[in-house]
């Protein structure tokens, strides 16, 4: 199958500090990729560079066979990428307005339909739809972030730690919802996560370390790698 997103030899960072040292990564059409990496490895930096919040220093990013390395973020989004950052929401807008902005490129009618669908999975959001995003609890914000990202029907969803801070019930719920969109709308996903429950649904995994990809492979390959098991899952045998 064709590559949807392709990152090659990516270098980027903040000010004078280089964080990514030539990362390579690819996501195929309708593929689900989980990006692992210890704290500080540069996962957030990588995702931000892909959506254009950070400048690329060196390397190339292609999406849908277009070179998007130097495009503005909004154009990348318009081309079919949806992004959920770690903070994920508009604090001064209501929950409902947040969701609507998730579907910025969609019509009102379509937005309404999608919103109702997402409310079914996240009843809290429905209950608080007129509350300000910024007054929600940490976990509620994550739910809002996830739901907001799914409002548009993108080709590729990029999420930065969608499950952190969610209660176990909602971690399951989020995985369920992502799975559903993955199947129904053939969305490709690139998700930076630490929660191992996400592995069950990944088709490919990458491990980022020190700004470089040090592992690429399927979940079973990952799980059978002893060193990685020790470093990432704390399982020692």
């Amino acid at each position, binding site marked *: 199958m064709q590559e949807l997103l392709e990152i090659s030899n990516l270098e980027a960072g*903040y000010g004078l*500090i280089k964080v990514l040292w030539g990362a390579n990564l690819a996501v195929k059409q309708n593929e689900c990729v989980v990006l*692992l990496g*210890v*704290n*500080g490895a540069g996962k*957030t930096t990588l995702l931000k560079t892909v959506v254009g919040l950070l400048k690329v220093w060196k390397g190339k990013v292609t999406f849908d066979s277009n070179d998007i390395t130097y495009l503005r973020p909004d154009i990348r989004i318009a081309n079919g990428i949806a992004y959920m950052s*770690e903070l994920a929401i508009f604090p001064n807008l209501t929950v409902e307005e947040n969701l609507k902005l998730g579907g910025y490129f969609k019509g009102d009618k379509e937005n309404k339909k999608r919103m109702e669908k997402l409310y079914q999975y996240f009843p*809290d959001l429905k209950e608080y739809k007129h509350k300000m995003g910024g*007054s*929600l*609890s*940490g*976990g*509620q914000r*994550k*739910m809002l972030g996830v739901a907001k990202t799914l409002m548009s029907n993108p080709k590729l969803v990029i999420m930065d*730690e969608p499950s*952190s*801070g*969610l*209660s*176990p*019930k*909602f*971690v*399951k*719920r989020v995985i369920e919802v992502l799975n559903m969109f993955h199947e129904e709308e053939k969305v490709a996903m690139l998700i930076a996560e*630490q929660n*191992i429950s996400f592995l069950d649904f990944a088709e490919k995994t990458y491990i980022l370390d020190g700004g470089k990809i040090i592992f690429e492979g399927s979940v079973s390959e990952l799980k059978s790698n002893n060193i990685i098991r*020790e*470093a*990432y*899952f*704390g*399982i020692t045998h």
Partner: protein
Amino acid sequence: MSLNNLMLNVEGLIKEFGNFRALDGADISVKEGKILGLAGPNGSGKTTFINVVSGVYKPNGGKIFFNGKSIYKLEPHKIVHLGLNRTFQVPKPLSGLTVEQNVKVAAVYGSKEGNTKDKINSALSSVELDNVKHKEASSLTSAQQKLLGLARALATNPKMLLIDEIAAGLNQHELKRIADMLIKLNKFGITMIVVEHLMSFLDILTDDVVVMNAGVNLFRGSIKEASMNEKVVEVFLGR
């Protein structure tokens, strides 16, 4: 259970935001030297509980005793001086200051006891941030910023800590490291309430958990009992 060795005793705590009750009469107590796990579905009021107990938000009713003394509606810095501190779920570093300066403020103003330099060094080494102490706090990753928050709290010589989801977003290996860190601190005599969603993490720390729901405590007992409790499974763990 005699009242004397309750380090923190909260009864019927109420907090309202407009006409919404985020805490609706929560009762939570911890004995000196223990670790209490605090879990519950998103939005159940865990962070609000910490916010109110630490004085960041003013309560609308109930009682809060720390070491036998009421700290109800006391200002945060006074509560800190009594020996109770907390960390934040969404980290709030002093962004423009260096890591070391972050901790220094706490060491100087948090408590009179002890040598400032020593307090800074030991707090930073407890959370393993000594290698980045000259970095600006804003350049740390969010996980590091949470640890920095813990270091600031430690530098105030706390008797008790309220820890809010310090392990969220970490991998299993890192979780273990943080858990060990907390256990070590507990061994030095710091009582704790640890808010966390991952039961496996709480499991390493303690066998005593409270599960909150909708602003009240739903369950108290061991983790095993919790995982078999119908209601807890229903609202928190999910089937």
